[in-house]
């Protein structure tokens, strides 16, 4: 399916932030904003909810901790107790280092997998982008157009009034 977008190109993050606020205030739905670096404050301006990733991180960590403690207690305490210098089979203080390392291991890799999955990041042959300059020095605001692109003139005016240095049109084919 082919979709059309109006692209407002901005030169500065502060101008972009105002533009985002004003464009949304004007009742226009913004498809997405692409920037070469994270623009602080844009989440609020775009109305992006606060990420729940930290909650996931906590549960990954707890999973790692529980797994590590279970593994060590089961292996050395129940499955094959070894007499090591007459010390207790379940020597909890000695299990702490591995428990800590596995907590970190699970948190980190769980977070990485979650991040890649929800953001849709995976190796691919070709990456269609709105504007190649968005990873260099330009801030790109994409607004979805309808079939006839009838809103384009007003949108161009709105974006220009809010500091866009260029307004382009782009067709993107999506599956």
């Amino acid at each position, binding site marked *: 399916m082919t979709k059309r977008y109006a692209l407002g190109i901005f030169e500065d993050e502060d101008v972009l932030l105002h533009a985002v606020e004003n464009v949304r205030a004007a009742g226009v739905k913004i498809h997405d904003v692409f920037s070469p670096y994270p623009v602080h404050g844009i989440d609020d301006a775009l109305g992006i909810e606060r990420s729940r990733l930290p909650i996931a991180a906590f549960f990954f960590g707890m999973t790692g901790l529980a797994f590590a403690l279970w593994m060590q207690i089961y292996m050395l305490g129940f499955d094959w107790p070894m007499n090591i210098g007459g010390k207790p089979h379940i020597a909890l203080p000695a299990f702490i280092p591995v428990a*800590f390392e596995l907590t970190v291991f699970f948190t*980190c890799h769980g977070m990485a997998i979650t991040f890649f999955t929800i953001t849709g990041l995976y190796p691919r042959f070709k*990456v269609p982008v709105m504007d190649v300059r968005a990873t260099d020095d330009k801030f790109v605001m994409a607004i979805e157009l309808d079939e006839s692109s009838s809103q384009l003139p007003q949108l161009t005016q709105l974006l220009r009034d809010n*500091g866009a240095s260029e307004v382009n049109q782009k067709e993107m084919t999506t599956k």
Partner: protein
Amino acid sequence: MQHVSAVREPLVTGGKTLHDVTQDICYQVEAKPNIRWMAALSVALFFLGVFFYSVYRTVWFGIGEWGLNKTVNWAWDITNFVWWVGIGHAGTLISAVLLLFRQKWRSSINRAAEAMTIFAVICAAMFPVLHMGRPWLAFWVFPLQNTYGSLWANFNSPLLWDVFAISTYFTVSLVFWYIGLIPDFATIRDRAKGTIAKFSYSMLSFGWKGSAKAWSRYETVSLILAGVSTPLVLSVHTIVSMDFATSIVPGWHTTIFPPYFVAGAIFSGFAMVLTLMLITRVVFRLEDYITLEHIALMNKIMMVTGSIVGVAYITEFFIAWYSQVEFEQYAFINRATGPYWWAYAAMMTCNVITPQLVWIRRVRYSIPLTFVLSIIVNIGMWFERFVIIVTSLHRDYLPSSWAMFSPSIIDIGLYVGTLGLFFTLFLLFAKFFPVINMAEVKTILKYTVDNGPTYNPKRAAHATPAPQPAIHGAPASAPVNYNKHD
């Protein structure tokens, strides 16, 4: 613009624009390899050859190829292991701890420092694996049931903790580093002309587009990873030190080891970061990004951690006397005055005296002096591990089994070989990966001054930062929100 400080030194000099940053960093990736890089790679590859030869000898004939004997059964191998792991710690300190402390100057050095961490851990891992004698059975360290029954790994052993610590450290550093690389790979991908380059960087960039939501999650994930990496980096060298501290060998059995090893690790790591950065900034012409201010700041960290190490040396000596344990006292007296006095003297000179020179401002800001100091510290920290390991072992409780250690040619080959491995990996990284985190440097451009505002060339005319810069296309009446962003 609203956070420009008139007092602080600029983090990036040369009045760079966003596009300049992209150009400067991508240049090295896109240009044909220069002759100096080729020459350096040839030398590194030669030593990599030495490494492979030494590995072949060690694996084929066994660890009898090394200079170990019945008394000194741990020597260069573990010295090199601890040395390399320690070097890695500075990278994580820069990428994680300084991120949590919001030290913006880390932006231009964190990428290369993290790469250094990963390569140093690879080099470190070679030694314990080769010391197993039968490295093809290395998987036995993991808690797998052996073939005869249900005997598991011994979780009470610090050596097993080390396995978990090092493998966690390596994989976590790798993931953290790679997530940071993704936006920069996307930048290179969008500039790439050739088919192969376009294809490779498309694959590497994981389809990154820089959308607002992706950036928001990226920042959250970076903070979480930094949050878990900070205690991780402290735990790794703590556990390495427990390889020694939990034993009852005089000279090793000390409670001061964990903090002392962590400080030493960061100390030697920063020395290696300085060595690498001083070369990288000249070879790749990155003087505007890795400024004298960066060098001075790293020198200060080196001085602080070096002083902690110095205090630890003296404390150790005092506690040996204070403990009234004859064997403990002998271990330390023997260290300083015994047959290995020269190693001890080298350690004391390089690690205690050298970092104190950094108090002098001229030393801190001098490139040649810093370079020499960083090399001396690297040597000193190698000797520290040698002193701890060999002098504690070579004279044990039974004088009839006292012995000296001398390295075999294979020992030496393995050590210089890992240097070859390290530099091969680092040079390949420096050529094909962006050596500076472009996205992160771009975030600080607006908040740093270089003889007036740097970010927008149109603003260069103003001597003081204007609250509302004349930005192309912006309406003059556009209000500025001063509280919105950091």
